[in-house]
């Protein structure tokens, strides 16, 4: 097996507000292998979308990649010039946007938009080839070929989302980034769409990043789950390990707070609020809400470190436990 499809090193993205840079993504490291599905969860505002956009260099002013590197399929994304970047996008990495409702150009047909995309990257295909490809793709995502000649507003939310999926795989990319692809859909439709997405992704053998905050959805869809908190990656574990043995205290509380439709259990929340951009406390950003925060947590920001077989966590307590030291030693 060759190296990872995606490799993020020390990536930081900042927003410039009133002449000051606020980090929305800090020092993220992540690798992704071909065919792998990773989920990224986190509270609203934790930087998930910012990270996703940065992975395609689609972030807009006032966002700026402050440092780090992103390599996709061996290409260093950040060093690409304008035109190479344009060609690179979608060819290697595509995305399924957060709001499929608004991501299709409302005034042209599905066919036009798909043709557009193909034409922007290859001039060789004939019109007939392109049409055949479009219809084939639509069928692959479970849509009628007739959908090609409809306008976005003539489609239901689920159909639009499927069109977006078809669009995402039109150039058979190595990496697909899906930012909350189903958050606007109801559960019945959501299930169908996610299953379609999983299907086409595994057929292509592409790597996939699925962003969201629905833990149930993640549990059913990904191989690995990463948690973002205040712009950092704080937890990264294979999906079963994550649910059965959450290491980071935030992950633990998150799982505890999930209501289940299948049983009655008391509701428990995570007390406190996520810190706002630029108002990060010293030390571990989670320590004000952490039930077992110690002195060290107040002063030192824990790095994301290996904490088990193929899993990482950013927590002093986890690190201490792994180092075989006990709680007192750390605080002492």
């Amino acid at each position, binding site marked *: 097996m060759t190296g990872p499809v995606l490799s993020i090193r020390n990536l930081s993205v900042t927003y410039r507000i009133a002449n000051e840079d606020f980090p929305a993504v800090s020092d993220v490291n992540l690798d992704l292998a071909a065919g792998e599905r990773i989920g990224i969860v986190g509270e609203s505002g934790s930087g998930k979308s910012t990270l996703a956009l940065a992975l395609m260099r*689609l972030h807009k002013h006032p966002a700026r990649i402050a440092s780090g590197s992103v390599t996709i399929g061996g290409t260093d994304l950040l060093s690409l010039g304008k035109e190479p970047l344009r060609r690179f*996008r979608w060819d290697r990495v595509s995305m399924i946007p957060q709001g499929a409702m608004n991501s299709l150009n409302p005034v042209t047909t599905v066919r036009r938009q798909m043709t557009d995309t193909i034409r922007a990257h290859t001039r060789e295909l004939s019109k007939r080839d392109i049409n055949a490809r479009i219809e084939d793709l639509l069928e692959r995502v479970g849509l009628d070929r007739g959908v090609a000649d409809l306008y976005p507003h*003539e489609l239901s939310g689920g159909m639009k989302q499927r069109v977006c999926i078809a669009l995402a795989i039109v150039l058979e990319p190595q990496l697909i980034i899906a930012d909350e692809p189903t958050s606007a859909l109801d559960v019945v439709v959501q299930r169908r769409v996610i299953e379609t997405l999983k299907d086409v992704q595994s057929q292509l053998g592409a790597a996939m990043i699925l962003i969201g905050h629905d833990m149930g959805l993640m549990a059913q869809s990904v191989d690995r789950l990463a948690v973002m908190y205040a712009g950092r990656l704080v937890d990264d574990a294979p999906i079963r390990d994550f649910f059965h043995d959450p290491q980071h205290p935030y992950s633990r509380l998150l799982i505890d707070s999930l209501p289940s439709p299948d049983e009655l259990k008391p509701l428990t929340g995570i007390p406190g609020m996520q810190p706002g951009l630029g108002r990060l406390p010293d030390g571990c950003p989670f320590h004000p809400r952490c039930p077992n925060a110690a002195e060290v947590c107040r002063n030192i920001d824990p790095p994301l470190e290996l904490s088990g077989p193929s899993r990482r966590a950013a927590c002093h307590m986890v690190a201490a436990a792994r180092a075989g030291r006990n709680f007192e030693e750390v605080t002492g």
Partner: protein
Amino acid sequence: MTWNYVGRRVAMFFAVVLLAASANFLIPRFAPGDPTAAVLEQLMSRGQQVEGAGDIVQEYRERFGLDDPLHIQYFRYLWNTLRFDLGQSISFFPQTVSSAILDALPWTIGLLLVSTFIAFGVGSLVGALIAWPGAPRAVKALVPGLMMLSAIPYYLLALIILYALAFSSGIFPLGGAYSSYPRSFDFETVVDILYHACLPALSIVLAGVGFWALGMRGAMIGTLGEDYLTLAEAKGLKPRRIFFGYAVRNAMLPQVTSLAIALGTAASGSVLVEVAFNYPGIGFLLYNALRSSDYFLVQGIAFVLVLTVAIAVLILDLVYPFLDPRIERQ
């Protein structure tokens, strides 16, 4: 496009026309003064001693049906209007109102429509570029200039242009639509007509460009945040394609709606521009008709103006669904 939609627009069209026609009929009738007396006065002031002026006035009042009760006049007017018989001009008797209007209309349409569309096109493009992050810096430098222009009304601009480009420098003619009435339709005549149309068109275009540019800029800024633009960029489309096919195409929609209203305003603005440039169009005709209190002509012109604008609005409304396929939903 649903029939319901078409039906509603067409009904609206007739409502506008009927309303306009009625207002048209009533307003001049509340004006003091008697059009026939006015004609006589014109003669008398030229020095003709008219005996029995009252008789002549009466004679003409009868001829034009001005003595009938108001409602009879109203229905007759509506009926005639329906048949596109706008009656006879009093001051240009025996020329009919329709023929007087037909003489003037081509000039106005030529001048106004062309320059409004030029202003619309250029303004929208410039506005779109101003808002477009990838546009050259030089374009952004236009903003203050455009703002100034859009703040200055047509006719003040017309006066300044007239002074600068025609009066003091003599580069352009001082007014009129041609040097000598076109006797044949050859190349020279066409050039002459275009030459005469330059300044009035320039003042309409200049004043309009700023307005359209600013409107388009607002619409573009609204569009820029849309998800489909981000996706278009993500798809690796060429910037030009994103600009025209995605951003401009969508930002244009509200502009097209204002075009309808702008045509109405432009029709009004034309009065002043035409008067300033002595341009033999509808606006100039209206001005003269008002001056000579020619009821029927004033009515006819106002009616034709409203009708033209109403037709333009109707066309825009009917074309709009093709520009914006979402519209049929409402």
